[in-house]
């Protein structure tokens, strides 16, 4: 089952002719993901890697190929527009990889998305992987920039605001021969499409997910909101790691959203809320998998 995407999902890549988009479209193709179209305005009619058709608009790509999900690799000034184009084309899922989109652009995008059927993941995220059954988990659906080979098909859901910490958690699981149902990077920006809570609800409803690793960090109150719901409604074991306990207040720690401001958004407050919700807290990032497995 998995959530959001399956190995059958048809994916298009917005910004497929840029160096970053091209590289990761190639890696996704190599992983066995159905990358069925690319979109670059002005380059419609060309082929990517001699096989993937490129279109000028998302709507044309959807009509011609039946793609239902998109990866956005468009530079920051144009990314908000690209996301809205995907929503307008009626995609099920838009995954925005782009880092550095102005916050005001995302505020407008989120407002414009209200009442629309499309789900947005990101921006500023590694994307989403539902591992496949093949060697090094090939044959799965990889949308974004995560390394495919670290995954293994299985029953743990991973949701995280950080790319490299997602890879750490996934690798810790795979090395213990424990696989993942789906791994979702929700991104490090203050305004994003999908929250920890949204993903945890999906994992809770997914029969193939038996346990959840949630990776949060300082800034905002998304982890606290997830904690409240987990306490009341989550039927599956959850382990969490929160990064940034040692971060100085008022400083942005790399991610635009990772900032303790006005005493709000501290790691301590998040850990307290999660502990009160019965979530197992990983004391260090080295023991994320171990902490969940002990709880299971």
């Amino acid at each position: 089952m998995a959530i959001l995407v399956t190995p059958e999902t048809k994916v298009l890549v917005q910004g497929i002719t840029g160096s970053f988009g091209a590289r990761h479209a190639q890696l996704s193709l190599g992983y066995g993901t159905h990358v069925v179209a690319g979109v670059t305005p002005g380059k419609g009619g060309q082929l990517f890697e001699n096989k993937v058709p490129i279109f000028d608009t998302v709507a044309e790509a959807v009509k011609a190929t039946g793609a239902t999900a998109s990866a956005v690799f468009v530079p920051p000034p144009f990314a908000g527009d690209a996301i809205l184009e995907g929503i307008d084309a009626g995609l099920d899922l838009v995954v925005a990889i782009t880092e550095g989109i102005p916050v005001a652009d995302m505020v407008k995008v989120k407002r414009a998305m209200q009442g629309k059927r499309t789900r947005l993941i990101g921006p500023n995220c590694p994307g989403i992987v539902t591992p496949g059954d093949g060697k090094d988990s090939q044959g799965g659906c990889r949308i974004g920039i995560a390394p495919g080979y670290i995954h293994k098909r299985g029953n743990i859901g991973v949701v995280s605001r950080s790319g490299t910490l997602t890879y750490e958690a996934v690798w810790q699981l795979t090395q213990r021969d424990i696989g993942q149902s789906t791994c979702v990077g929700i991104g490090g920006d203050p305004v994003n499409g999908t929250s920890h809570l949204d993903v945890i609800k999906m994992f809770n409803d997914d029969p193939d997910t038996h346990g959840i690793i949630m990776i949060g960090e300082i800034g905002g109150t998304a982890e606290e909101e997830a904690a409240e719901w987990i306490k009341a409604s989550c039927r599956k074991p959850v382990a969490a790691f929160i990064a940034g306990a040692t971060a100085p207040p008022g400083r942005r720690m790399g991610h635009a959203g990772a900032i303790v401001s006005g005493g709000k958004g501290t790691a301590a407050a998040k850990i307290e809320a999660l502990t009160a919700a019965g979530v197992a807290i990983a004391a260090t990032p080295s023991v994320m998998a171990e902490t969940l497995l002990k709880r299971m």
Partner: protein
Amino acid sequence: MNLHEFQAKQLLAQYGVAVPSGEVCHTADQAKAVADKLFTAGEKAVVVKSQIHAGGRGKGTFKSGFQGGVKLCKSADEVFEKARAMLGNVLVTKQTGPEGRLVSKLLVAAAPPIKKEFYLAVLLDRATSRPIVMASTEGGVDIEEVAAKMPEKILKESIDPAVGFMPYQGRKIAAALGLNGDLAGQCAKLVAGVYKTFWECDASLLEINPLCIIELNGKEAMSAVDAKMSVDDNALYRHKDIQEMRDLGEEAPLEIEASKFNLNYIKLDGNIACLVNGAGLAMATMDIIQHYGGKPANFLDVGGGASKEQVTAAFKIILSDPNVKGILVNIFGGIMDCNVIAAGIVEAVRETGLKLPLVVRLEGNNVQAGKQTLGASGLKLITGDSMADAAERVVKAVAR
């Protein structure tokens, strides 16, 4: 990016927000000349305000012993004296830390009598993904304290980005502040201007504390007496005028150097430096150093595709911090080749002539080749098997 008070007020004035008239000055003579102009125009008092990127200026102390970074003056000569005492001296406030900040410019402005103080701010509400206007009758004080003790005293007005700030919201805020008649109209207009400044300048925070009722030509009027503003770094590309307001004198020299190489570096006060790929992992590496009893000297994210040049620059930057007694390199090379990183580390260590203990934890793509490169280099470095193992080793090596 943070702005100075005088820069924020320039922007506010451009959007029609009433601010006390004044000018930025770099010398005491300049300050006197501006004060002369203001007194000649009929002002009864003039204020001299240190321009640094930190709050608590009024209650701060200069390292020279001079008290107060904000001074009210009754004559141009007094302005000259105060300006001379402040300029070129280091001001320590509760927000600067003990090292303080060098005051190299002053805002010299009209200081009309203040009848009442309010609080006003516009910021992003992350929970709703919308801007929010906050107003309170409790002005001129620490708003975090008000929020903790009397949350009912803070009005929060959410703004729909599809329609923007509406006039009724200005009237609602004026009413909540207890204003009526002409002042209420002035307040509504001022709040609309503050919101417009926030939105059109891509601000992440715009705070007016205090927003005041002042006495102007024998009548009461609304005025933004202080202003604090920071702008979204991601949006600076579309604001050339605001980009030019960047004050490198307010930033740590090592952080400026790092930004030249697209490295994300933040200096901290510990002694174990770290070099990591990815912001989340970089924060987590600081945390795990502390977990094993050490203190991180910095946050440093070399990014997803770090080049050899970047790794070398990163080593030079962390070694410029005299507190550093050991280094932890923590790389999860998902897609980037660990062997390339290893070669970068070897070269950086040779080039910088590193003598401090160095612990390297490599994981991911082509990791065996990377470890071989490190092993064959003949360098005295310690390899960690896991993140925990590496953190423990670097803490031990530094304690020795």
